[in-house]
């Protein structure tokens, strides 16, 4: 790259059509005068923001910062000390009442879970009955053929659509 851009341009134009290699080299010198175009100043931030929104990157977690971890650790230590202090200062709790409450809570939870399971199973039983009724109607050769043909058509349509929509990007194989 000399001092005069147009001298480089003239050198290239003189070489062009005469000497392919010289013209190639001379045009590089011309383009050295042509700056690259730049995107907007906040382009990198926009891209990273879009990547976070799109789920490609996780947002910078505040938990990851060292001072936050230290603060949480200190908080836990202080809480532990406070609980320990309260336990030492107060009379010992009635252990049997605690066990009774725990057993009652577990038993109540198990009963509730059983009821929920019963409702869920009854829905499945209903679905099963509906399916059996439909199968009684559909279990003829004609309906079977129509359903099979429909399935084949749907598969073919899916395959064709996938081929049409497949972006070139998927072909990148570096």
């Amino acid at each position, binding site marked *: 790259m000399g001092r005069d851009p147009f001298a480089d341009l003239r050198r290239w*134009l003189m070489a062009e059509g005469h000497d392919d290699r010289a013209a190639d080299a001379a*045009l590089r010198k011309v383009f050295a005068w042509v700056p690259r175009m730049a995107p907007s100043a906040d382009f990198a931030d926009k891209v990273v923001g879009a990547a976070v929104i799109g789920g490609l990157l996780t947002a910078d977690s505040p938990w990851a910062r060292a001072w936050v971890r230290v603060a949480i650790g200190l908080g836990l230590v202080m809480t532990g000390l406070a609980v320990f202090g309260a336990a030492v200062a107060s009379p010992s709790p009635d252990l049997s009442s605690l066990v009774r409450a725990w057993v009652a809570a577990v038993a109540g939870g198990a009963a509730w879970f059983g009821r929920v399971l019963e409702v869920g199973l009854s829905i499945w039983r209903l679905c099963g009955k509906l399916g059996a009724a439909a199968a009684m109607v559909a279990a003829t050769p004609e309906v079977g053929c129509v359903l099979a043909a429909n399935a084949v058509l749907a598969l073919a349509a899916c395959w064709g659509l996938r081929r049409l929509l497949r972006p070139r990007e998927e072909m990148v194989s570096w």
Partner: protein
Amino acid sequence: MTPTDSDLVARARRGNQEACREIVRRYERPIFNMIVRMVRDRALAEDLSQDTFLKAFSRLDRYDPAYRLSNWLFKIAHNTVIDHVRKQKSAALPIDSLSRGEDLSALDAGDPAARDPIETLAQAELARAVDSAMASLRPEYRQVVVLRYQEELSHEEIARITGLPVGTVKSHLHRARAQLAVALARLRPAEAGRVAERTGGRAPATGSPSGS
């Protein structure tokens, strides 16, 4: 110490935002420059550049460090532009927010204060002339010219990025140079006679692809 591309990619694979930001900062200019030269629309080029980086981030596990990161990004950018053109159902790319005199002011011409003002003016004039001449080329010619003469890539690298055979790349470059010479000589009448004499007076072709 500046982290290498491999370091940045390794960190970006783990979801490190700062590494991703650094990758974008490192390559935003060449990627945007190639795309804007192809589509000649700044807003669209910025969108497509963003798509390029987002696709790259979503496929970092496919990146092979044996290849240059820039070339991998160029290939994704190329495919992104081609996909866009296909979706627009038009081989004709948008005409030209740039050739209407947009935005040579947005070109980074280095530090003008550090340079001779006459040289700076001459550079701006040359950049404008080259930009106008580039506008007369077909998009695929513009792309190979940018990759060869601005990014200084080899024919083989350009072939890999564009998916064209090396011979076709050379042929595109040869034709693009001839057309650029004629277009630039038109803008610089002093050169017109000599160039027209050598190129047989051919005007810049804007017709159908040669398919070489």
